């Protein structure tokens, strides 16, 4: 197949990159349509950062081709650099300088006219909710604010293609949600985005297309729903403290999906597979249980994790070396008290 490059902001074909004996990328192919979001999902060591570094002109590929906005990353690196923004895995801002100074320096280094640099910095500070702290050294910022400033720094020159390498790793849940909001807003403005993540729920939340990467290869790809269907989708779970109401509870949630609820009588726990209708099903369940007057505890939506995806795709769990502080092996849950 030959791709026409006009519709795609990013095209990657047969990409290989090794570091000595370590084959970080062993033949990666994907294409990202203009204005869409590609989530690159994979455990630690899968090759995500290496891919991002090749795509952003920082590393020369051993073989294969990468075209960004019609320009080859090897032959036309300078043209690519004028069109991309990169926020790497660690925050690359100067902590001694203020948020405003950080952004203005980025603007100057992107060869923006001095007059427009100031306005652009002020606009980004406002948009990213850093305006109040704009003239304080960035080292006084919270982790979430530093991440937002880092992202803002990659946006000063209004890149049409943005690369975010694990934008929420290390953030607390609140900072994570704030980052998601900002990323959604960016995409709403038409920026093409490639983001890497270790969390399926994050890719699900933000990406139009997901490629699952392991050991330098794409092992699965598709829309978030296609992937989750492969995994079996979301699971709604709750406990009924009053054993005599257990049957009423099952009746109440039975119509939520095609699958019949399973009941563990011993623990009074009810489980319903709700496919990809997770949050709607959650709201619906609360409403129905409420209507039938059943009291529940620990009502929660279990979303499939990266591990579940791996299990479904490869038949084994992720094998990445455990990273200290990594949450990759925990199942994120979205729960509501009932």
């Amino acid at each position: 197949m030959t791709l026409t490059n006009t519709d795609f902001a990013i095209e990657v074909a047969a990409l290989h990159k090794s570091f000595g004996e370590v084959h970080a990328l062993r033949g990666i192919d994907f294409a990202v349509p203009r204005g869409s979001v590609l989530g690159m999902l994979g455990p630690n060591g899968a090759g995500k950062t290496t891919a991002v570094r090749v795509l952003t002109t920082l590393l020369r590929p051993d073989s294969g081709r990468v075209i960004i906005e019609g320009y080859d990353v090897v032959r036309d690196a300078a043209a690519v650099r004028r069109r991309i923004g990169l926020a790497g895995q660690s925050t690359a801002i100067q902590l001694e300088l203020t948020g405003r100074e950080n952004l203005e320096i980025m603007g100057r280094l992107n060869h923006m006219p001095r007059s427009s640099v100031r306005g652009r910095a002020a606009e980004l500070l406002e948009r990213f909710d850093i305006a109040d702290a704009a003239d304080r050294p960035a080292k006084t910022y919270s982790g979430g604010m530093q991440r937002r400033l880092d992202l803002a720094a990659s946006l000063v020159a209004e890149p049409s293609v943005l690369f975010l390498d694990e934008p929420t790793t290390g953030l607390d849940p609140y900072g994570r949600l704030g980052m998601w909001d900002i990323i959604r807003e960016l995409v709403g403005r038409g920026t093409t985005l490639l983001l890497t993540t270790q969390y399926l729920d994050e890719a699900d939340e933000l990406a139009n297309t997901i490629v699952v990467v392991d050991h330098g290869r794409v092992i699965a790809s598709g829309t978030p729903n296609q992937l989750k269907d492969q995994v079996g989708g979301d699971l709604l779970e709750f406990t009924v403290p009053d054993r005599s109401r257990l049957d009423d509870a099952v009746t109440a949630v039975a119509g939520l999906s095609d699958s019949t609820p399973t009941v563990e009588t011993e623990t009074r726990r009810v489980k319903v597979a709700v496919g990809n209708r997770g949050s709607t099903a959650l709201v619906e369940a609360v409403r129905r249980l409420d209507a039938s007057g059943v009291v529940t505890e620990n009502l929660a939506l279990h979303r499939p994790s990266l591990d579940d995806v791996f299990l479904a795709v490869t038949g084994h769990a992720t094998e990445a070396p455990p990273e200290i502080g990594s949450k990759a092996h925990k199942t994120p849950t979205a729960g509501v008290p009932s």
Partner: protein
Amino acid sequence: MTAIAEPVNTRVRPGAAQMARWAISDSLVMTRRNLLVWLRVPAYIVFTVVQPVIFVLLFRYVFGGAIQAPGSGGYVSYLMPGIIAQTAAFATFATAIALAQEATKGVIDRFRAMPMARSAVLAGRLIADSIRMLIVILVIIGVGYAVGFRFQNGVVGAIGMILLAEAFGIAVCSVSAFVGLAIKDEESVQAFGLIWIFPLTFVSSAFVPIATMPSWLQVFAKNQPVTLVIDAMRSMALGGPAFPLNPALWESIVWLAGVLIVFVPLAVRSYRRVG
């Protein structure tokens, strides 16, 4: 496998004059940024300014009495050129550490993924650090004057000494830039700096006449470049053999040029390979 058609976009390359303008303006933006960071952190200023001042006072008043110095003006005059050269060399610890941090924190990655001039990160670092060095040198000379040091060879000699000290500092800076970018780990960079900068500056004519050292050490001390530089600085500051005839001056210039020729390309190479 997917084949990709030839890119539809033709290459657009800015002209050489535009590239040169960007190289200069980007280097200046980086220079300003680096100086701003230095001024923001009191600890950096203390380390770079207060520490050499303490050295001046320590050697002048604590060790000075025990050291017999040749030449006129007493030990303080002998001491000052040595301290100035050492300070310039020590100032490059900060160069190595800053570049190592920028490499590990992804700052250099970000810069390299931007359309800015490729030379600007290193150039901005070297320019900012030589300005920083000059400020510190002038402060130390001021302190030296307060404790009895005097230039004895006129204004030209004084300026010559300062310029040579700067050139020496810039040469050491290029070595430190290479070390910082090649090693990248901040603590190792610091340790490595101690390993090469301490012996080179102390086992020299900086603080004591080489004749007082054991003979096996003299062989190294007499012939190593830091001694040559300090001897040349001393003769410019205090008066010695007339300018063009001073072999130490020519030998130092050759040494410094050699160091720059070797280490600037090495630093550039490791900058390109960061990551």
